[in-house]
């Protein structure tokens, strides 16, 4: 029985994949009148492999970094055909293809003001190629190209602030979401689709393989990311912060100990302090602390 005709069963994602959940929620929220442009990555590879596809909407994959540009072409063609008002366009990709190699195309699409929703599935590394570090890999994370070792605590750089970069382009809607908060995610997608112009949603998508946790741990892991302040959920409309998930902040250690990629930090209070600082800064910046 098909409960999800737009993103069907039979894809080859890992069991418990956060990105699969998020991708399904996104397209279900956007609806059947949507054309999806996908970057190369886990989602593209596990959802389409000739002769199989799980996409019940028109779907195209071109290259690793150009979904924003290809989507710009799709949108332009739809305008020419007089069909843009009745068709949504979504461009999507992972954190690497969005914030690193695809940043140029994304910036161009935002700057030109295309009516496209860009969705970034943030699993915080180049997962499809084997868990290599990306610009959105958090500080001190153990990845295969930023491994923890005798002289390294993992990734030495902070997370690239793609939502802020998108915000700086002056677009109508920027939001972060999480696969661990599915209803919030659906609501944000629906809100974004209803607006005209370029929109950006970044979805924290857990990865059991790359983050090293059990396949049924998506919810506690994703929730802790938000509840510690390390992954703030917020919404900006026309440059104004109009919504955020307020939290009773938990210490970051609770989040770090759920995943193998942070195992090397657990006996190091100094590094944990640095990560706590990142969380505290987020809490302050977005005013995340619940009152009372």
């Amino acid at each position, binding site marked *: 029985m098909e409960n999800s005709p737009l993103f069907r069963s039979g894809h080859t994602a890992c069991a418990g994949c956060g990105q699969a959940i998020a991708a399904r929620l996104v397209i279900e929220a956007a609806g*059947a*009148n*949507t*054309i999806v*442009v996908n970057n190369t990555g886990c989602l*593209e*590879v596990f959802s*389409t*492999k*000739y*002769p199989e*596809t799980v*996409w*019940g*909407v*028109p*779907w*195209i*994959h*071109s*290259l690793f*970094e*150009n979904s924003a*540009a*290809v*989507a*710009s*072409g*799709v*949108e*332009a*063609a*739809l*305008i*020419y*055909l007089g069909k843009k008002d*009745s*068709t949504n366009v979504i461009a999507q990709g992972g954190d690497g293809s969005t914030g690193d190699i695809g940043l*140029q*195309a994304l*910036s*161009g699409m935002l*700057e*030109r003001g295309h009516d496209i929703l860009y969705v970034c599935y943030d699993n915080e590394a180049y997962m499809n190629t084997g868990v290599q570090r990306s610009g959105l890999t958090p500080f001190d994370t153990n990845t295969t190209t930023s491994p923890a070792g005798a002289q390294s605590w993992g990734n030495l750089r902070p997370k690239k602030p793609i939502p802020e970069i998108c915000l700086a382009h002056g677009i109508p809607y920027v939001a972060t979401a999480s696969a661990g908060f599915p209803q919030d995610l659906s609501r944000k997608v629906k809100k974004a689709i209803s607006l005209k112009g370029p929109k950006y949603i970044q979805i924290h998508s857990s990865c059991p393989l790359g983050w090293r946790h059990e396949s049924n741990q998506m919810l506690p892991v994703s929730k802790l990311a938000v509840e510690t302040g390390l992954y703030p959920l917020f919404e900006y409309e026309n440059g104004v912060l109009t919504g955020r998930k307020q939290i009773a902040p938990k210490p970051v250690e609770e989040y770090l100990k759920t995943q193998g990629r942070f195992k090397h930090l657990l006996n190091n209070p100094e590094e944990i302090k640095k990560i706590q600082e990142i969380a505290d800064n987020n809490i302050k910046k977005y005013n995340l602390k619940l009152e009372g």
Partner: protein
Amino acid sequence: MKEFIEGSHAIAQIIKATSPGVISAYPITPQTHIVEDLAKLVANKELNAQFVNVESEHSAASVVLGASATGVRVYTATSSQGLFYMQEVVFNIAGMRLPVVMTCANRAVSAPINIWNDQQDSISLRDAGWFQIYAEDNQEAVDFHLVAYRLAEDKRVMLPVMVCMDGFILTHGMETIDMPEQEKVNKFLPPYKPLYKLDTAYPISMGLLADPDYYMETRFAIQETMKESIVYLSEISKEFNTVFGRDYKDLLVEEYQIKDAEKVIVAMGSVCGTIKEVVDEQRAKGKKVGLLRIISYRPFPYARIYEALKDVSKVAVLDKAVSLGAYAPIAVEMKAAFYGKKKGPKVISSFVAGLGGRDITLESVHEVFRRLNTKEVNFDFIDLKPELLKEEYGE
């Protein structure tokens, strides 16, 4: 209607006549006038198209890929570095069988940076699966764009076409051109009817992963289509002649005074105009010389070239590109056309000239005929300046 017009402006006019739905390009000398003109036409409502000003050539090609996949006629233009930047998208467009038409304003490639004409850029992308047709003059450049759309969008073909015209020489050269009238263009070029497209009414997935069980057949299919298109090019040329009154024969080669020639130069592009003058000059003095101009570089017309030159004893191939570390590109294909065959030239000599925009003068062509004798030249530069090679570096 005959107009005295700059090459780029003529190209913009003919593209306007084909009514593309989406145009996207990134500025690069010497293609700039074409896209500037198109932007003006759109701004003045003379052309109803979506003009997308992108942030790089990679995105320009991606935009036309997306628009073509949505079932709309598209256009882009580039040169040299821009073509190289969009290289992966170029291969992608051919692999996805989308009928994109692109003008390549041939320009030398970095490094060193050089904005003048040679054919290294498009020749370096010969493996991509695009048709490549080379114009000798601006009339051809204009006409070949019509041929390009007709060929690309043919349901038996569905492959992209690159129309190559020498940068500056043709793009910025003024010529009298018989600009095709709109009614005749409409007669020759029907509206684009896609075989497959992104449409919410009939959802399909495009650009899937093809593992070793499926990949090779896609390449075989493109190769077969290219082979079949040798015939389609003749068909299209005939239709073109009927509508516009200009006969491009088989759109593969042009034979110029080949019949009883003892020495023939093979070349591509605007340099052929110069070569024709030298051929006329030498013929007037009783020398039996000729020119075989290659029009279609991809698909490479091996059989046609064999037919044309099998009885010619000496052939010089004049390349405006070089495959560093090996023999020149067109020369290699020429030799392949004759190897193992019963007949063919006794000598196929290879000369490279005009790189980085160095002028190929009448004297240069005379020099080629001079060096074309019984001793085969594997590879030689024409008009080289040895005094520049004395630079030394280091201690």
